[in-house]
């Protein structure tokens, strides 16, 4: 009997680029979208002016490997950990969270404790960002519950 699915594709990295707050600075987020796409990822852009609740819901529907959180409005200390908590509450703590925008140095350690890494600011090279995402997702797949192939 012919097998239904003859081949198994390597999983494509799926990432949600989001702005979980009242922040209209979308230039950086759009640039990230293109950089991730050019690095071979499937990128879902969540748009501006979304709430942490919407971002978490989108991440789950889309079964992304990672969520890129971008805020330049100073609300990152509330919004980023909120997304992390919502994902934990939905049994989706394995989704990788990376952050960026205007983030003071002293905030970075706190965010990292919440599992939100990177937290890159203006001038960071896109190569650095792409590598950071790929590295974190690669580490994740070893511990995730997703059946390996």
């Amino acid at each position, binding site marked *: 009997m012919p097998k239904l699915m003859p081949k198994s594709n390597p999983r494509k990295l799926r990432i949600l680029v989001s702005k979980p707050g009242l922040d209209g600075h979308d230039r950086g987020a759009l640039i990230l979208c293109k950089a991730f796409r050019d690095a071979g990822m499937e990128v879902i*852009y969540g748009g501006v002016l*979304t709430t942490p609740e919407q971002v978490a819901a989108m991440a789950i529907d889309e079964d992304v490997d990672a969520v890129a959180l971008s805020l330049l409005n100073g609300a990152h200390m509330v919004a980023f950990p909120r997304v992390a908590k919502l994902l934990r509450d939905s049994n989706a703590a394995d989704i990788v969270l990376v952050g960026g925008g205007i983030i003071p140095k002293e905030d970075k350690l706190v965010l990292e404790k919440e599992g939100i890494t990177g937290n890159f600011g203006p001038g960071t090279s896109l190569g650095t960002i792409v590598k950071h995402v790929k590295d974190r997702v690669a580490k994740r797949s070893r511990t995730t519950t997703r*059946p390996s192939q």
Partner: protein
Amino acid sequence: MIPIKPILDGNKRAVSRAISLIEDESHYASSLLRLLYPHTGKAFVIGIVGPPGTGKSSIIDAMVRCYRQRGAHVGVVATDPSSPTSGGALLGDRLRMGLHSLDSDVFIRSMASRGQSGGLSPTTRNVVRVMDSASMNPIIIETVGAGQNDVSIASVADVVVVVLMPQMGDEVQSGKAGFMEIGDIFVVNKADLDGADKTISDLRALRSDVKGWEPPILKTVAIGGKGIKEMLVQIEDCRQYLEKKGYFARRRMAHLEEELLGDIVSHWTQKLKLRAKRTSRFRAIVREVVSREIDPWRASEQLYKELDMM
């Protein structure tokens, strides 16, 4: 083994993970699909097709709002093209459907076309099955909208809606776009812009009613939802017409026939390729064709014989 109960119960995380397995054509996919298949066939599947930027995603957003008012559990599959160079993709359809993300009875999934032509992803049909098994109904599919030949939708959806907009010029006039032929309903969106009536009269001249159903032509303004209720009425009318005439079941039968044939053909194609390459004569024959000792037609005849296919 993946438990299917959470999927059938519509648990979003379970559904979304199942979809990923299928999208990646994982080894788990076929056994999962076999378990889910008995639970499928319930959903009404609506295809939305048309050139980029005509407002397909915005229309779906408005449709979902209407269906939710009636208490339906709605599934959406939105397709965007994969980049042929990087293999990556920018999936932006969700942007227009943002407000539904928090609704537990709406499930929206973005898919990349992953190299498949025809406007869908290779696994769209099976992704729809997962949603169907989770009791989503209706399920709305948005095609890529990139080319003239977004026609795969006709072998997945029960009813196809073609979305156009004013000032499209040639695209409508020439009638060359493949998707013009598969429309059960035509929508001229952005009717707030000039030229909607011109587009409608162009369409009138073109539409064909081969099935005894004359595709209606409607005006909508997706932003604000004008005309969307009327559109849903037409979709329902079309469905009832197809059901009354027995075309509905016939379409589904044709879809399955095509799917099965496709599976068999691709299975045998792979097998044959391997066998042909393994025959000792294969390389030698290719060389003889290169050096003009024999022609390609003689060569394939000989290979047929050798593969015992004549």
